[in-house]
């Protein structure tokens, strides 16, 4: 028997294949597409205290081997999540990580407090790629000192594992990884989307109404893998690798680079059952390779 179990803080996952926030709805949309118990965990769409409508349309477009989105963090809000979604999610037996964000430190802390109190939320993933209204629209995730302070403040109100999700739109991701570790975060997830842009040449207008959006999908995999590797070499807490994963091979690259688990994002749109498929393939791969415990694959990259 292969042991695919991995640990994120105090939480044990049955396997390291998870779905990424914003690409898996509230899990329920996938209930008829795969067995939610067969994947390590799923991450909800980013939640805020209040319901949000998001940005104007158009807010997605396709790019070579990728896509840009500027959804604007549209979500049902904490109340509706707790009362309408969570009870239904609970029935599926899924492991649930709640992704959340705020516009001020207080909103972050308050959101975390709410999620901490919800039965059926197994871990929290804090998205810091949001404009900080108090700091004049600069992202929370763009200043290590501030990130450490935010992590500490949130960690104070939660016992559940706190994962902090890093932005790749920085010159060097390592100080941010350290900030999370120093702030007491239980794990890091990386990366969120790369800031990108696309133009419709015919109309000479941006393809995304808000001009900029986040690039995701296979195109970003090399950048994501590099940043995940850098994080893994910087901190001791677990790192969850995200960015462009489309195959077992891609997932293994992240694990070998040092990730404890991975999240699959954009490819859920293209192949809704991909998380379950790759979890299955991972198990078969371990058998074929004589790997009895997946944690021995983590960080097994050999540098000559």
């Amino acid at each position, binding site marked *: 028997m292969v042991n695919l179990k991995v640990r994120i803080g105090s939480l044990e996952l049955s396997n390291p294949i998870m779905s990424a926030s914003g690409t898996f709805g509230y899990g329920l*949309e996938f209930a008829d597409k795969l067995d939610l118990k067969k994947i390590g965990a799923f991450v909800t769409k980013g939640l805020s205290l209040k319901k949000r409508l998001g940005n104007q349309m158009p807010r997605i477009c396709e790019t070579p081997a990728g896509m840009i*989105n500027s959804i604007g963090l549209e979500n049902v809000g904490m109340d509706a999540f707790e009362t309408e979604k969570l009870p239904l999610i609970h029935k599926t037996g899924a492991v649930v990580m709640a992704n959340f964000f705020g516009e001020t430190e207080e909103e972050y802390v308050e959101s975390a407090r709410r999620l901490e109190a919800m039965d059926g939320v197994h871990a929290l993933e804090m998205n810091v790629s949001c404009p900080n209204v108090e700091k004049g629209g600069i992202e929370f995730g763009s200043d290590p000192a501030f990130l450490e302070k935010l992590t500490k403040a949130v960690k104070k109100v939660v016992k559940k594992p706190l994962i902090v999700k890093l932005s790749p739109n920085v010159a060097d991701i390592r100080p941010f990884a350290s900030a999370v570790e120093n702030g007491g975060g239980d794990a890091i997830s990386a990366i969120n989307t790369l800031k990108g842009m696309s133009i419709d040449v015919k109309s000479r207008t941006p393809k995304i109404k808000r001009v900029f959006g986040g690039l995701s999908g296979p195109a970003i995999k090399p950048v994501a893998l590099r940043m995940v590797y850098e994080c893994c070499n910087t901190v001791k807490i677990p790192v969850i690798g995200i960015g462009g994963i489309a195959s077992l091979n891609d997932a293994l690259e992240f694990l070998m680079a040092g990730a404890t688990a991975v999240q699959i994002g954009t490819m859920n749109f293209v192949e809704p059952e991909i998380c379950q498929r790759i979890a299955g393939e991972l198990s078969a791969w371990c058998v074929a390779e004589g790997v009895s415990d997946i944690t021995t694959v983590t960080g097994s990259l050999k540098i000559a």
Partner: protein
Amino acid sequence: MKPKILRNVPMGKRYRMIDFEWPDDNAQPGQFVMIRVTDSVDPLLRRPMSIAGLANGRMSIVCAVLGKGTAILSEKSEGDFLDVTGPYGVGFNPPESETALLCVMGGVGTAPFLFLKSRSNKKIIAFYGAADKDGLGIQTKFDEMHFSTVDGSVGTKGLVTDILLAHPEIKNKNAFLLACGPKGMLKAVDQICVREKIQGELSLEERMGCGFGVCLGCMVETDEGNKRVCVEGPVFKAGTVKW
């Protein structure tokens, strides 16, 4: 589903009709499928295509070549395999009582009506608008067929809304109208519905990331708030969309 292509033939000058295997008959006119045209990651996303027919283990779509994805799709051969998910969305739902339907269509907007025709015994009065005669050829026999072209090369010269407004049924307050086509056309038809107090349904198009409600890329603003074209649509009640 990885159905085998059974046929891929031209339909008029601009379109191709592609038939492929499909295991069941469970779909409503107005619903769509999502097609992955390649195993590679470029193009990456699935393409939405209305169901143009479904019977006897065979589904049909009508495809207009617009960009990379539809170009690849249209060049597939009989015997090749497709990668299709769905059906998705909510189809047309004209009242049971209605015996005649005014169906306004432009371009590949005809596709869902071909399916509707095959499933319904109501009288279908079709209004087809195109820029020129190259847009024609996709229409099979509806019960009544009215054409308009912008350049006047076929049918009445002008917009499809002109021939719609000229039709006697438009004054029948019990008429029911369905529309599928370019945004401009839908908007104009919607205004007619509101002005003439005619009930109707419009099938919308938006760029789609997933097709099943999770990317939130296909929103449309309605008087009941943001709706996902892929789940709450693509068919919406006339008079409810905020253009």
